[in-house]
């Protein structure tokens, strides 16, 4: 698989900056045509990883392969990858069309041909007619699209994007990310996308690689990550989660019987042995019912500590035997009063055992 055009592989890659190790050991394979997100908190080594793939940093150890070819020592300008920078890095003294043609001409294309191709690139991102402007004469969203077009006209094996939307406002961000995803699926190139925004990652990715302190914390499809987080860190980072103590009573094949408060649940065991364990519970995993203060079957008892009306939903903080829980009720429209007893029923889904 890794010898195909667009396949990427990191083999035991390490990166030190002086005495500081930004990425201690990275093994990662990316299949051709996928959009893979590197997700993680600031400073976890996402940009470093991306820059090593681009050839802007040299790994201290290990090897990087693109399309089956070892490119570890190949300088950036001889690699078949392009990059969309966080700041866009459009050349401020060149017109939009010259910016897009720049890479084509670097590769030896004749000016006339390159301008033609650049025009097509501009059309691809829906900006035909703005070719003669300078970057400073474009809006933020337009600049972003020029940056994408400039990277795409070279038809790279892999497109790299480093937080490409972080300079846009929230509304635009949503639109542009959909556009990028559509382009990627239409043209079928491999893309590596760095972001620290989990919403963005969930929305665009085929696969998400969550990083922490330079290591891969978990790697899977957006659904896998959301529904079966491997650790508390992932559970909290991908969507919010409450972490609750529980007891695993027994195992049947790959299912575990779990008791939490007054509720009994059957969940994928994920290799966890009987005994005390922990659950990651999404805020929307409960049905919120007015309680009577008694321990009933099939639920958790608690009292409302705070309630915030949000229009389409109500956000509660609820104190109970399991500690304070963050709960979202998307059904009722009248919040329960602070201090009143509630019963939280599991709706099924949104719960996973974690290590």
């Amino acid at each position: 698989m890794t010898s195909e055009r667009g396949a990427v592989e990191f083999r035991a890659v390490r990166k030190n900056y002086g005495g500081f190790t930004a990425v201690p050991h990275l093994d990662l394979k990316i299949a051709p045509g996928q959009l893979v997100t590197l997700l993680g908190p600031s400073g976890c080594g996402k940009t470093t990883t991306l820059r090593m793939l681009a050839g802007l940093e040299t790994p201290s150890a290990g090897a990087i392969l693109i399309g089956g070819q070892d490119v570890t020592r190949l300088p950036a300008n001889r690699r078949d990858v392009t990059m969309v920078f966080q700041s866009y890095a459009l050349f401020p003294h060149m017109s939009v069309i010259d910016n897009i043609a720049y890479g084509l001409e670097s590769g030896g294309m004749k000016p006339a041909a390159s301008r033609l191709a650049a025009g097509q690139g501009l059309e691809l991102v829906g900006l035909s007619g703005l070719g003669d402007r300078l970057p400073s004469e474009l809006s933020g969203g337009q600049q972003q699209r020029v940056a994408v077009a400039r990277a795409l006209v070279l038809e790279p094996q892999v497109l790299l994007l480093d937080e490409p939307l972080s300079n846009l406002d929230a509304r635009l961000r949503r639109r542009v990310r959909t556009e990028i995803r559509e382009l990627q699926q239409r043209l079928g190139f491999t893309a590596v996308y760095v972001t620290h925004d989990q919403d963005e990652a969930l929305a665009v990715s085929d696969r998400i690689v969550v990083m922490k302190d330079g290591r891969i914390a978990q790697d899977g499809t957006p659904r896998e990550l959301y529904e079966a987080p491997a650790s508390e860190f992932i559970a909290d980072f991908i969507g919010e989660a409450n972490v609750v103590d529980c007891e695993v009573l027994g195992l049947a094949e790959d299912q575990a019987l779990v008791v939490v408060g007054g509720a009994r649940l059957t969940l994928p065991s994920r290799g966890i042995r009987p005994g005390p364990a922990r659950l990651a519970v999404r805020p929307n995993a409960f049905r919120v019912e007015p309680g009577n203060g008694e321990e009933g079957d099939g639920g958790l008892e608690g009292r409302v500590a705070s309630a915030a009306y949000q229009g389409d939903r109500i956000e509660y903080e609820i104190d109970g035997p399991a500690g304070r829980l963050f709960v979202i009720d998307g059904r009722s429209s009248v919040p329960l009063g602070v201090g009143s007893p509630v019963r939280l029923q599991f709706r099924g889904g949104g719960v996973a055992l974690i290590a």
Partner: protein
Amino acid sequence: MNADNRRLDLILAGAVLCLLVLPWYKIRSGFFGFGWIGDMLARPDLWPGAFQAAAGRWQLWPVLLLVAAVAGLRLTAPSGAARGRWLVRLGVLGLAWLVVEGLSVGTRGWNWGLLERLLGEVAGQPAFGAGAVMLGLFFACLISFGAAERGALKGDAFVLTAIVLLILLVAVFVFYPILSIFTGAFQDFDGSFTAQGVRRNIGDPKIWSLSCLTGGGPCGVAWRTLFLALCTASATTVLGLAFALVATRTRFPFKRGLRLLTVLPIITPPFVVGLALTMLLGRSGTLTQLIEAATGLELGRWLYGLTGIWLAQVLSFTPIAFLVLIGVVEGVSPAMEEASQTLRAGRWRTFRKVSLPLMAPGLANAFLIGFIESMADFGNPLVLGGSGGVLSTEIFFSVVGAQNDPSRAAVLAAVLLFFTLSAFLAQRLWLSGRSFATVGGKGDGGRHALLPARVAAPVIGLVALWSLFTVIVYAMILFGGFVKLWGLDHTLTLDHYIRAFGISLDGGLRWTGVAWNSFWTTMTIALIAAPLTAGVGLLTGWLIARQRFPGKAAFEFALMMSFAIPGTVIGISYIMAFNLPPIQMTGTALILVACFVFRNMPVGVRGGVAAMAQLDTSLDEASLTLGANSGRTLRRVILPLLRPAILAALVYSFVRAITSISAVIFLVSAKYNMATAYIVGLVENGQYGVAIAYSSVLIVVMVAVIGIFQLLVGERRLRRPAASEAAA
């Protein structure tokens, strides 16, 4: 065939070609005359390296051997880390051999008696010529290409080659000359070692005597120079601060005019102020005559000596202090002053307790700059020195004229160098990181508090007075060229201009003026030197700002240090280093160009680093990921965005090449005479009128050329001008 092999083939072919075609040794009549091509076969001294070696110059055999070894390596080994290591080794060996061979065999055989006794006699050889220089470059490229094959700096051959060549050039044109001063001090006329000259000079009371303190005669020249530098630095700092305060914190009406003052020292040849002072306050100066007529006193020759030099230096260097301090004064965040005022402090208390302490490091910096400038000044002491010179002029007089005592020059140069380098080191080590001045960004609103009245009044008075003085001095310069005989006969005349710049039209156009010769030389050399200086300086700035390589900090430090080497020391070091083989350049235009390039380069470096700091690195990286190599990135992305810095570097190096005198006066020759040296000659002959006329023309020409440069380099177009937008 990969890029590693391609570029290696290229330089190998070049090296072989140079060995077979280019004369190895220096050609007396000049390489670029190309007259040598015809005589080549007949005259063995014109033969290329390969033939020289065949004819028995065994010192060239290792060079051929090394080239052959590289060719063998290219044919047998694949490109990669292992071959890279060998290329580096061969390159280092080659350069080392050229140095050893060049330094040990001179025109008359061995340079050192010891070698002759050990190895027997050897035929003398002339200085390196085109062939040898090209082979040196070949070996330097081997080092960088080898390093690139080993993967250093991400295998970027362009950057590596730039670094290696720069280090080589700086070593040859900055450090080798400085070293030659010290070796020159310990050599006799025949080149043998002797410490006699140094011993005689190092304890010379003319240098070190302190008897002026006890009243027993004049002090030594070292102490007088130090004293002068301290006085000049104090005065320029105080005046510069006064100007800066007036420009930023008063309601003084002529602030724009003040800023104009800062341009003056850049376009004024350094001795011109001294000249104008002579015309104003000298024995038959205008002001002297007025005062003598009014009071009946005999003023005499008070101007000639330290007092006069001091006055001229303060006039010349106050604008520089102003330039430094205006940044400092503006850099004090208004928020601090406003905070102080809200804490019940009045304007005076705020100024004394907050503003002034915040400016202290900046003041120290301005002081050190004034100190170094004064130490290095040569033009004013030459014109006004009279009997009591300073170190820079003493150095000059110890090599020209009757004395001709190189070891004395070397000792004096060492003393001068010690003073200026100490000041430079103090500035770098002690002051760096101590600047409190916090340049307010956008978020930092507020306005600077006005000066308290009790400070404002005297400061404005001082500034107004001094500005008036400056204006009079410059008026003198422009006016002086139009009167018959200054101080005696004030009838208006164009005689001086005609004498200097006359043109005769009968029998075709003839440049009859006495100044034309040196004028055209100056223009040519300045025009050659300016782009080279800007290029080398900005390239270095780019390397320092954008590339990480081992030894970078040391490299940058050494470069900046070369700025603190006074011109006089450079001049003397160049004639000591480049007068004899292996590198012989005295009397050529090349030595002048080299001197300008390496003397003015640090300013280009600084400008380049500062400008590069404002360009986001992602621009370079974007270009790289789009498939451009670093050469193309530099050409297409960085350079166009650096236009303002390029313009500044071009203008600065051009203007400095025209106005400088201290180093130039050692290096000019009958064939290549420079304007400043010629003007000093006029002054020495008492032809003040012509000298002043020539100086005024220079100033006007410089202003014009600055304008032309501005047009040529053009604007950096990042935004469409408003007019075309309206039309669109």
